[in-house]
């Protein structure tokens, strides 16, 4: 074997050693599969960006059929769950402050009479808006709920009081996820989050573990090249990434019934590049960090912006320009567009080639840094 080219035997030596070590390290091995399942369950079942059934207190000073209709409409909308009635405005304030209810809806006495007179009486909705995401949808729906209920109720002689339709009709066509099911957006995104978190962390340990256990000196004393070490150490985790992908896709399909309208092969191409990108980042971290602890910290430095700025947690286009610029530099951002594009929109290769190329460029940069940073001596 000549000195210049990489050796299959040496790459296989590293690969086989990593596989055995990975298998024996029960904790890490368990983590690689427990984390995805845990995240799927937590994010998939627990998180809802369109929260419903929010506890609501009502403060009504009269009980006419119209008022009853309005309250019933609130409940049937699904957003509000009427949990108590209060008679004291101060008490309703306390309930909000204590967090016992998210809304207090007050209908003053004389409401029905003034309504019939055409006086435009008021309904007060007090919302706990400390978490805008929790209250905004319900608040936005409130007027429509009441309007619809009244249109139904105000007939015959009262017809003139019914709300007028607007001068034009707005037709909204919510495509790709018409029911607005949060899981359809979250679960495919989770594939990217899970791969980022586990793969970067595991490969981050790759070289630092050798350094901490004192086996680095032995490895460096043997004629193995940086590129051989990198390929040999990364390869086993490509398989781990493949298994994780399979777990998430099966869960998406059978547990969350997420639609899959695009090409599976296109998605797998995107996943492959994305997996390599994360492994390259992890390996780069492990050439920079001096200990496993440092590698872990670097992983979090990478994971946090990935989670927050990629469009997984918050809408990408809603972020300021500088945050979008950082987001564009992260592979998760591009992968999310691919996975959501393929699964929900049926995007084609032409639609997504820019995203794939961006990840390829990312891999090239990460590998270059890793090769520059790889220490061939103990200096």
């Amino acid at each position, binding site marked *: *074997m000549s*000195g210049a080219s990489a050796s299959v035997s040496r790459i296989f030596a590293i690969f086989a*050693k990593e596989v055995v070590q990975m298998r024996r390290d029960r904790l890490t091995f368990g983590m690689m599969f427990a984390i995805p399942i845990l995240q799927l369950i937590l994010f998939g079942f627990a998180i809802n960006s369109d929260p419903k059934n929010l506890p609501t207190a009502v403060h009504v000073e009269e009980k006419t059929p119209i008022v009853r209709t309005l309250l019933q409409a609130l409940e049937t909308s699904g957003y509000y769950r009427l949990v108590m009635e209060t008679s004291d405005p101060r008490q309703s304030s306390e309930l909000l402050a204590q967090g016992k209810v998210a809304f207090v809806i007050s209908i003053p006495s004389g409401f029905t009479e003034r309504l019939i007179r055409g006086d435009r009486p008021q309904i007060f909705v007090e919302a706990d808006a400390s978490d805008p995401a929790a209250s905004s949808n319900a608040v936005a729906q409130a007027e429509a709920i009441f309007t619809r209920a009244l249109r139904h109720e105000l007939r015959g002689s009262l017809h003139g009081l019914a709300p007028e339709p607007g001068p034009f009709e707005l037709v909204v066509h919510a495509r790709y996820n018409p029911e607005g099911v949060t899981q359809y957006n979250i679960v495919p995104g989770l594939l990217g989050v899970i791969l980022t978190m586990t793969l970067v962390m595991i490969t981050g340990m790759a070289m630092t573990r050798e350094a901490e*256990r004192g086996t680095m*000196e032995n490895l460096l*004393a*043997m*004629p193995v090249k940086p590129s051989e070490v990198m390929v040999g150490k990364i390869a086993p985790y490509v398989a781990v990434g493949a298994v994780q992908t399979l777990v998430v896709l099966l869960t998406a399909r059978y547990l969350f019934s997420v639609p899959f309208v695009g090409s599976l092969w296109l998605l797998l191409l995107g996943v492959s590049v994305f997996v390599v990108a994360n492994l390259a980042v992890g390996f780069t971290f492990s050439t920079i960090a001096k200990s496993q602890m440092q590698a872990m910290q670097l992983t979090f430095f990478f994971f946090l912006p990935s989670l927050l700025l990629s469009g997984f947690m918050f809408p990408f286009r809603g972020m300021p320009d500088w945050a979008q610029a950082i987001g564009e530099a992260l592979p998760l951002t591009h992968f999310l567009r691919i996975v959501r594009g393929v699964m929900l929109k049926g995007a084609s290769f032409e639609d997504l080639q820019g995203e794939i190329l961006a990840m390829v460029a990312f891999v090239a940069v990460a590998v270059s840094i890793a090769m520059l940073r790889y220490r061939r001596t103990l200096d």
Partner: protein
Amino acid sequence: MTEFAIDVRGLVKRFGDKTAVNGVDIQMPEGEVWGFLGPNGSGKTTTIRMICGLLHVSEGEGSCLGFDINREVDKIKRSTGYMTQKFSFWSDLTIRENLEFVARLYEQPSLKESVDATLAKLGLTKRQGQLAGALSGGWKQRLALAAVTMHHPRLLLLDEPTAGVDPQARRDFWDEIHHLSTEGLTVLVSTHYMDEAERCDKIVYLANGEVITRGRVNDIIATSGLVTFRGEGDHVRALSKALKEKPGVEHVSYFGAALHVSGSNSALIKEAIGGVNSHGVQWREVKPSLEDAFIALMARAGADQRLHA
């Protein structure tokens, strides 16, 4: 191509503003067994690491097995076996897996045969499935030696290979070293044990990153110019404190019930012995031990024994 296995001149290694090795020359002929001695922190490990390409050389040049130590590190690594001071094989791999790993890295042609042969030679065939981390110190050392010689290197660099190993295992180890040496292997061993140093063809003694002395054991003792008297008798050990304060006494040490008093001036030593109340003690001149010689050398070189790795 030189006839020297190791031929390095003016090796210097600095870590920041600290100089660990300061101008070391070594010309070691092929096929010999050399001992590398010196106190902790004297630069032994650093020198070995520079020779096998594990550390960049700050200054100096030379070759190892005919390959330039600054430019042909990969070639040096392929023909050298380096056994680290601390056990550095993979504790979570079995004995067999460790050997297989090494055999693959050195691209051994018949993997199974060479691993089987090594296991048989070690007497570890039955325990090949045991994790390397579970082995005792002596066995770890044997495994390490087997692993670093599997690819038939031409040069062995052993860094304190017998530290913490029992006497029987040490003896077996040295038998193996001499056996390998008769097959033409060149061996450089660093050690703290004097009996091991005496098993070497030549010795290089390092202190504070510099070579203090080198040569055959007998020559080193002879050129140390040391005179040693051995005292035997009741209460001889009680004299040690008084003797140490006498002029001309460089070194006093216990040898069981006996006392060795050394210095470079024979007359002063004799005067010192006569000057202490030593009735019932028999004094006679003996050949200084290598240890006596080294301690004297070190005292003269002003070598400090502080640890600075």
